[in-house]
C-alpha cells in the first residue's frame, strides 16, 4: 500500500504498514541528516529483529514528516512475551536501553512486551500518533519483506 502524501507536513492519521526499504525510500532520502537518520533506523530495525522476538516496530515523530532535518528517529517496539532481555547480546541490548539508544544509536526508543501494552496492543500502537501540540498525525509500522 503506497503511503499517502503529506498534509501540512504530516502523514494523515493512520498506522501505515511499510517494509524497511519502502520507509527508507520515502523518508530516508534528501538531506544528509535525513540519510543519516535513515541509516540509524535501518540499523535499529535489524538489531531489534535479530533478537528473534520482535512483534511490532513502529516509527513516529519528525522522521516520518516532511521536516528537512529530523534530529533523531522515534521508535516504539512491542516484543513477544517470551522476550528475555538478559539473553540479548551486547549490541542488541542497546536497543532496549533508552538512554544508551539515545547516546549510541541516535534514537528515542520505547518498548514493552505485548501483554504489557496499555489499553491493548492496537490501542498502544495507535497512541503514538498523538502530537505534542495536540491532534494526531500518521505513523508507520515496519513489516517484514523487501529489505
Amino acid at each position, binding site marked *: 500500500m503506497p503511503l499517502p502524501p503529506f498534509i501540512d507536513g504530516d502523514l494523515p492519521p493512520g498506522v501505515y504498514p511499510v517494509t524497511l526499504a519502502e520507509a527508507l525510500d520515502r523518508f530516508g532520502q534528501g538531506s544528509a541528516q535525513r540519510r543519516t537518520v535513515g541509516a540509524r533506523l535501518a540499523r535499529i530495525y535489524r538489531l531489534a529483529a535479530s533478537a528473534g522476538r520482535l512483534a511490532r516496530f513502529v516509527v513516529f515523530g519528525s522522521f516520518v514528516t516532511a521536516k528537512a532535518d529530523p534530529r533523531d528517529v522515534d521508535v516504539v517496539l512491542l516484543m513477544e512475551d517470551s*522476550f*528475555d*532481555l*538478559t539473553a540479548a547480546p551486547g549490541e542488541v541490548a542497546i536497543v*532496549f*536501553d*533508552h*538512554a544508551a539508544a539515545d547516546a549510541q544509536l541516535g534514537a*528515542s*526508543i*520505547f*518498548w*514493552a*512486551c505485548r*501483554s*504489557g*501494552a*496499555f489499553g491493548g496492543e492496537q490501542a*498502544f500502537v495507535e*497512541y503514538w500518533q*498523538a*502530537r*505534542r*501540540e*495536540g491532534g494526531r498525525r500518521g505513523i508507520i509500522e515496519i513489516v517484514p519483506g523487501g529489505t
Partner: protein
Amino acid sequence: MIADDQQLQVTMDRITWFQWQVVSLRRTEANPANYRAASAGFLAEIDRMQREVREYLSLHPADAVGAT
C-alpha cells in the same frame, strides 16, 4: 517547550498515559530485567515532560509573553 494552555493540557494528558503504561508494565512483566529496562524509557519521558510543565507553570502569563 509548552507555549499555551492547550499544549499544557496535552502534555499533562500525555504524562498520565505514560504513567499508566508503566503501571501496565509493572502489573504484567514477570521478568525484572525486562521491567527495569522497559519502564526506564517511559519514566525518562515522564521526567522530561514534567520539567516542561514546571517550566511553563513557573511563569506568570505576563512573564510568558516575553519568554516565548
